[in-house]
């Protein structure tokens, strides 16, 4: 009974948000997530089941938030890099470096968690700045410049851990990826705080405009007096920071630093999240909230397949199919043909959308300035 009510509330809230975003670019990303959830509501038993244990919520939806945190963090940095017309392939390797540095300091060097975390983040920022230097300073193609660190980074991480898998039990480090805050996993708060900080950084200052301008036309931005080189340097550095944070979460999740496997292929998930979130790989306009929702979508898909006992060997196939479908729906050409199918839904959610708090709606809209 409780579940039935909470599900209904969930859907009303979700539908209302969706309706309020109907003219926004991120509508399609949020909509895709909604469709996937709707599928689970009816066809995946137990997916919507939420349980309160020791004052913490547990359930598949909570898992999605928790497990998706890494890619959501990565996508925050990645979306800005992609907006400048670049790409950062090194984030997975930087995650490994960050994990290696923090656990080595914690375990081998017996340093307090605070220092380990700070050092790991600092190293990640340096790694990002290195990418920035190669791309902005020396004008190397982003794909090549970041490939250097993608390949070499894991080697660096191996050097740091001396080829060992380092296990740790430090409560602060373990809390990062396993702790709870406000009855939800701590990672939810972490992602939310990072999202708000990033939104502030790019939309409340002129940085977002500069990034979009540089990504759309580098030369013209330079002529307009934008320090285009600095903008590029900055986004790679920021992406390094986000990767460092994601690396800490990743090693905390498994309470150990495995230089070979932490963050493996996650750069691809992050790029995918950005694309699903509506940002073009060509650069220019970017959608920060879109990228995070995109990451959430990818994780929801993974969790769905897992919950439906699809073996992990074959799960990339349905995953790929669904992602193709999403990308199709985000294409204006494809949508124009499909438009008539969606009109009835508007009638249901229109009254709800107009009742949402104005602040929330404008905050979401603010991220996607295009009408």
């Amino acid at each position: 009974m409780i579940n039935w009510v909470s599900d209904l509330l969930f859907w009303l809230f979700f539908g209302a948000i969706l309706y309020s975003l109907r003219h926004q670019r991120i509508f399609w990303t949020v909509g895709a997530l909604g469709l996937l959830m709707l599928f689970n509501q009816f066809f995946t038993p137990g997916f919507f089941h939420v349980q309160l244990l020791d004052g913490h919520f547990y359930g598949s939806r909570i898992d999605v938030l928790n497990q998706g945190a890494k890619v959501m963090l990565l996508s925050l940095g990645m979306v800005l890099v992609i907006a400048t017309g670049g790409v950062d392939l090194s984030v997975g390797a930087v995650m490994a470096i960050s994990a290696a540095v923090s656990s080595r300091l914690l375990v081998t060097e017996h340093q307090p968690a605070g220092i380990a975390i700070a050092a790991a983040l600092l190293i990640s920022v340096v790694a990002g700045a290195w990418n920035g230097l190669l791309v902005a300073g020396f004008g190397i193609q982003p794909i090549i410049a970041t490939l250097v660190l993608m390949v070499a980074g894991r080697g660096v991480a191996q050097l740091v851990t001396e080829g060992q898998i380092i296990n740790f039990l430090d409560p602060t480090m373990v809390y990062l990826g396993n702790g709870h805050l406000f009855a939800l996993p701590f990672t939810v708060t972490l992602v939310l705080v990072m999202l708000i900080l990033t939104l502030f950084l790019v939309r409340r200052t002129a940085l977002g405009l500069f990034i979009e301008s540089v990504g759309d036309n580098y030369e013209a931005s330079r002529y307009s007096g934008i320090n285009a080189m600095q903008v590029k340097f900055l986004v790679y550095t920021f992406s390094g920071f986000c990767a460092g944070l994601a690396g800490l979460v990743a090693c905390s999740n498994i309470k150990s630093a495995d230089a070979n496997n932490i963050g493996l292929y996650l750069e691809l998930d992050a790029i995918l999240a950005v694309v699903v979130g509506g940002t073009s790989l060509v650069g220019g306009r970017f959608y920060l909230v879109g990228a995070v929702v995109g990451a959430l979508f990818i994780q929801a898909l993974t969790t769905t397949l897992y919950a439906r006992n699809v073996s992990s060997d074959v799960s990339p196939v349905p995953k790929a199919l669904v992602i193709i479908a999403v990308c199709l729906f985000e294409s204006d050409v494809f949508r124009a043909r499909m438009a008539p199918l969606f009109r009835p839904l508007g009638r249901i959610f229109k009254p709800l959308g107009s009742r949402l708090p104005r602040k929330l709606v404008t905050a979401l809209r603010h991220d996607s300035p295009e009408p």
Partner: protein
Amino acid sequence: MATPLLEVKALSKGFPGVKALDAVDLTVQAGEIHALMGENGAGKSTFIKVLTGVFPRDAGETRLEGKMIAPKAPREAEMLGMSTVYQEVNLIPHLSVAENICLGRQPTWFGAIRWAAITRRARAALARLDLSLDLKRQLSSYSIAIQQMVAIARALDISAKLLILDEPTSSLDKLEVEELFKKLRKLREGGLGIIFITHFLDQVYEISDLITVLRNGHRVGCYATKDLPRIKLVSHMIGKDVQEVEALGQKRASTATIRSNRPMLEAKGLGRKGFIQPLDLEIRPGEVLGLAGLLGSGRTETARLLFGVDRPDQGTILIDGRAVKFNSPRAAIRCRIALTPEDRKVAGIIPNLTVRENIILALQASRGTWRRLSVPEQEKLADRFIRSLDIKTPSREQLLRNLSGGNQQKALLARWLATEPKLFILDEPTRGIDVGAKAEIEKLIQSLRQEGLAVLFISSELEEIVRQSQRVVILRDRRKVGELAEAEISAEAIMQSIATADTERTVA
């Protein structure tokens, strides 16, 4: 009368919200050069695109040599004998000349490319234009003018009956245009029909036999070039009376407003090796300094040095008497210098940002990242300039790429006016924009001058320079060859200066 080569009847095309072409007729005879004239947005390009099958047509019929045709793609139109050469050279810069000519229809033998045949065909195609080029050389190593010729050769290679040239001369200098026209006349004698689109009135009168004028998607009429006075043509194009048009062009700038003799900007021996030889310049507040010269004479290079895009390796720049060094445009902007670049697409517009964002961009950049203009401030600023410069856009949130060339240029002017510059460098501000917008921009320059701005005005059109400037500096072969002031300024005097230099060169 013989069957016309091309006969278009009541061609119509609508885009959402606009009727781009409304029942347009056009007849072209073999061996005729037919100019298609009209302001930006009159429908010239749409007409060509519908004719050659880039866009599907809504209504109308086309006959080529009496046979009904309806190409669905440009390739099909080419096969039928209608080839188009576009404004921007649509070739592949890294391939060789021969490859470019035959690309997409390479002679093959069981799938393998027959290089000998390619060379033969390319040579034949170039011979038709009296060109002999190194067929193996990379296309990009040739000048834009030659690349344009190669594009024409490519178009002719497909046994074309009708050649469509969309603004072929906009990036050519005077001599190159002459050369092109010589070739076109020869092709005309060979019985080719040519549709010629341009903004340059001089060229239309020099080369065309007939003129069809379009305005707002309608055909205004078709006239024999020799019977149509220039002023009439302009009045047909912009839809105003002859008297009004005459009033637009006649005003000659006066010097009354030069406020002081102290230059706002002074360049002494400013130069850069292999770029521009050292030159002296002075620009005073309330003055328009014209920079004249052929394409490639160093005009843009000078502007780039003054704006910090490239660094000079000798000489100094003085702003209000103080020596300054510009390492980037940012440094120049800090000294209140503004520049609209020659190539709007490459260095000017941010196509996928809105008109509002494009207008506030330079101001925001000079304020820095942290002092962001609030949205209401941005909107106020954008609205002000959209109104005062009469930028035609459905809203300030329209993407800039959706505006016509003239309005994009106005938005760029707005971007810089928002920074309240003291020196405005305008590099070819009227290139590729229509007569109406051109007159407005010229008017704007004069009003800026009256407000006490210093303006450096670069243009290929001598008449424009003569109308606008109080002083003119003439460049040739990347060095300053003369300076004219006031009463000395005339198109003839500038030509003289450039031409003298040219004869010197031939002697040397």
